[in-house]
């Protein structure tokens, strides 16, 4: 089969949810033989929706699908997709930890290996062995999945995807067909070496398979893809054939983030930071460590200062942030908040009492989507909206709650009919504003930010930055974890670069900008 002819092609696929949210708008992509084609984009760009259409989890509103040049209907369900030679390896929850490797490999395919109601174990193990040999995978078939290293687990999952396609296709006489395996952010749980291991394995498998690689980690995508589709706001905004054209990481990044105006925004803010006067240290971290995630992390955070933890996904930066906030516990070291040492065994409610707040842009993580805005805003501000008729009993004053919410809504320009509007009905940007707005009145000493502006448009981004910068001016110290280097330059005075859980270097904002070529 010539590599240039697409095996599978979709044209003009559109998908709308609830008749309002457009997830995909006239998207066309193709997959050729024996290649790794990447689909990149920010969270919410429509990557997952597209993949779910390809494997039959969703049905598109419109669009066409071609298989080997023939027009075919979209798959009805994952099994249907499997029969067409398309399978998916999801980001998480792929493996079943307590199964043996060979059991997992044939999970759901047992009926093909049953004779008189008995499973032909010998045959299965024999076949598994030959499959592993063919796919160049070395591991003990009889060990349990959880005993394998994470990268090998992923490989076993990929092997299973290929195997199930092959077994499904045998009956159709289509064993010559190249299976298409969709890998949805396969590297998310892996460390850097494990990622390389996985990619070498994929390059090897490319000889007989095609891969759709879904990711937002630019260096990986650049290194291992043959072609790249860039998805933004449900549209394909760029298509690169890396064999014939040269693309820089920066160019790709610009395409993913899009919006030239984001650059203007960045330029507007970036020169205002980095001039922190010497203030007292509000957070001192000493030799903080958690086995397997990070070690020996030490820094001082001053009033009104923002420190960014920068590094590739999986480097331990978000774990450090989570340990500071108390979502996970560190094993070793010291966290001193405003002179008081915090217990390492973390619970967010203890840390909030000490003055550490948390804000993440991940929609739905900290919002109560079916609550009105006012309840979402008062959840951390009970002391501001309650009266105490008795010493032990506090009663919520609905009037105080509404006026607090109205105050925050006005200040953040949250666009909603009223403070009674339920949060799920708001746009992404407004949801994020509600999330960050609850801290505005609380005024924590330290605010931990995780991807604060993920998946929202420039206008909303700007408003979130305004809020954060104002809180910073008023003395709130911040820790930032993000995937976007520009965000660090907008918010941070100091950037700590982390790799494999170890602090590599500390940069000032200016040094960091030079380093990133911004």
């Amino acid at each position, binding site marked *: 089969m010539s590599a240039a002819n697409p095996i599978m092609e979709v044209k003009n696929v559109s998908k709308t949810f609830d008749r309002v949210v457009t997830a995909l708008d006239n998207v066309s992509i193709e997959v050729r033989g024996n290649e790794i084609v990447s689909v990149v984009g920010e969270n919410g760009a429509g990557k997952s929706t597209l993949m779910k259409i390809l494997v039959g989890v969703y049905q598109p509103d419109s669009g066409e699908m071609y298989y080997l040049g023939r027009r075919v209907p979209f798959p009805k369900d994952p099994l249907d997709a499997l029969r067409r030679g398309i399978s998916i390896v999801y980001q998480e929850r792929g493996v079943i930890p307590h199964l043996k490797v060979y059991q997992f490999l044939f999970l759901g395919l047992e009926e093909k290996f049953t004779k008189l109601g008995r499973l032909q174990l010998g045959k299965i193990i024999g076949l598994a062995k030959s499959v592993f040999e063919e796919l160049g995978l070395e591991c003990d078939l009889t060990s349990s999945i959880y005993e394998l290293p994470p990268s090998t687990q992923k490989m076993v999952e990929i092997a299973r995807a290929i195997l199930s396609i092959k077994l499904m296709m045998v009956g159709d006489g289509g064993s010559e067909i190249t299976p298409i395996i969709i890998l949805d952010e396969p590297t998310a749980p892996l460390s850097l070496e494990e990622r390389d291991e996985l990619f070498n394995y994929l390059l090897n498998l490319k000889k007989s398979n095609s891969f759709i690689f879904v990711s937002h980690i630019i260096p990986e995508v650049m290194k291992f893809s043959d072609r790249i589709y860039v998805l933004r706001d449900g549209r394909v905004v760029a298509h690169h054939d890396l064999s014939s054209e040269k693309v820089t990481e920066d160019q790709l990044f610009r395409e993913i983030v899009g919006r030239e105006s984001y650059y203007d925004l960045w330029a507007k803010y970036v020169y205002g930071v980095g001039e922190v006067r010497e203030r007292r240290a509000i957070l001192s971290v000493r030799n903080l460590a958690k086995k397997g995630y990070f070690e020996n992390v030490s820094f001082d955070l001053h009033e009104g200062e923002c420190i960014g933890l920068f590094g590739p996904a999986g480097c331990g930066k978000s774990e450090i942030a989570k340990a500071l906030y108390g979502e996970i516990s560190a094993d070793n070291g010291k966290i001193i908040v405003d002179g008081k040492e915090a217990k390492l065994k973390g619970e967010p409610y203890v840390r909030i*009492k000490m003055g550490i707040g948390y804000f993440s842009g991940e929609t739905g993580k900290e919002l*109560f989507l079916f609550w009105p805005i006012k309840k979402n805003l008062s959840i951390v501000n009970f002391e501001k909206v309650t009266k105490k008729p008795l010493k032990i009993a506090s009663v919520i004053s609905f009037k105080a709650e509404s006026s607090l919410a109205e105050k925050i809504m006005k200040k953040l320009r949250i666009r909603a009919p009223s403070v009674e509007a339920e949060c799920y009905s708001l746009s992404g940007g407004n949801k994020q504003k509600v999330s960050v707005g609850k801290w505005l009145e609380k005024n924590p000493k330290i605010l931990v930010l995780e991807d604060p502006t993920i998946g929202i448009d420039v206008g909303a981004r700007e408003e979130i930055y305004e809020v954060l910068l104002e809180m910073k001016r008023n003395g709130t110290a911040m820790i930032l974890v993000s995937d976007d280097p520009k965000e660090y330059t907008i918010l941070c005075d100091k950037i700590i670069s982390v790799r494999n859980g170890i602090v590599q270097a500390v940069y000032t904002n200016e040094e960091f900008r030079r380093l990133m070529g911004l």
Partner: protein
Amino acid sequence: MAQTWISREWLQRNLNTIIPISGLIALVIALRAANPYFLTSWDSVITLVYGMSWFLIAACGLTLVILMGSFDFSVPSVLKLSAMIFAVLYPFIGFASIPVSIAVGLIFGFINGMLLARFNIPSFMATLATSMMAEGLAQVISGGYTRMITDPAFRALSTTMIFGLPSIFYWTIITWIIFIFITFATPFGRMIYAVGGNIVGTRLAGINVKMVRTLVFMICSMLASIAGILYASQIQGAHMQVGVLDMIPLFASVVVGGTALTGGVGGVHRTLLGVLIIRWLDSGLSMLAIDLNVRMIIFGAIAIVMTILTIDRRRIRIMK
């Protein structure tokens, strides 16, 4: 835009209010048709009050637990155990047996809460186990015998007539109103809904989830205890059949009222509706001489149907 005020969306959004209210109306009409004396005399109202009061108290506790997205199987067993402790100790220490009985209930609630909050055992399993313990303890304490208390003071606790209604009615309504107030107008009540609505978000908002869970289970068991004490007083004693087969009707009244098993939706105020429906249906069916076991089948079916109807579909879509 010309739109009728009863839009499809409005109907869907308020399904868990419309169903119980229309169900209640239909039920009253049906009962009236089957029995012309239904609710015609004051006596029948008092019978109704006796039948529902203790049940509503226990159902309020269960509602709080279900609002958190958990479940408590031990409610009828703790109710029985508390009734038994009250009746067994009454001849020796009089009304001092009430705090003892409630204390035992609180201990069971504390164990339930800790098993869930501290040891992460699903509440379904944890409370099933503790309910067995409560059953066993009740058996040990009573020796399996029925305990009759003939002291009029014992009975007066629930049967003293005030403005034409027995005192148990006032105990119940006071409890009901207190818990409506707690769930709506206090931070603690807000926290209960928060845990049921988004447990990750609750934790991130700096709420001590473990404490809320433990406290709610303690409140639930305490209310079961109070219900048991009042019921014992009402029937002048306790026996091993108290609370048997009450689990399904209790659960059914909570969900029929419109509190979703997924947590975060509904409330104690709704449970009154559910209790009215389930208890009336129960008495209506027994009036028609329908066997207890068949009634259990019907309640089970109602519980399942209402669970399906009240589960928040919007949320399921979000959860994927």
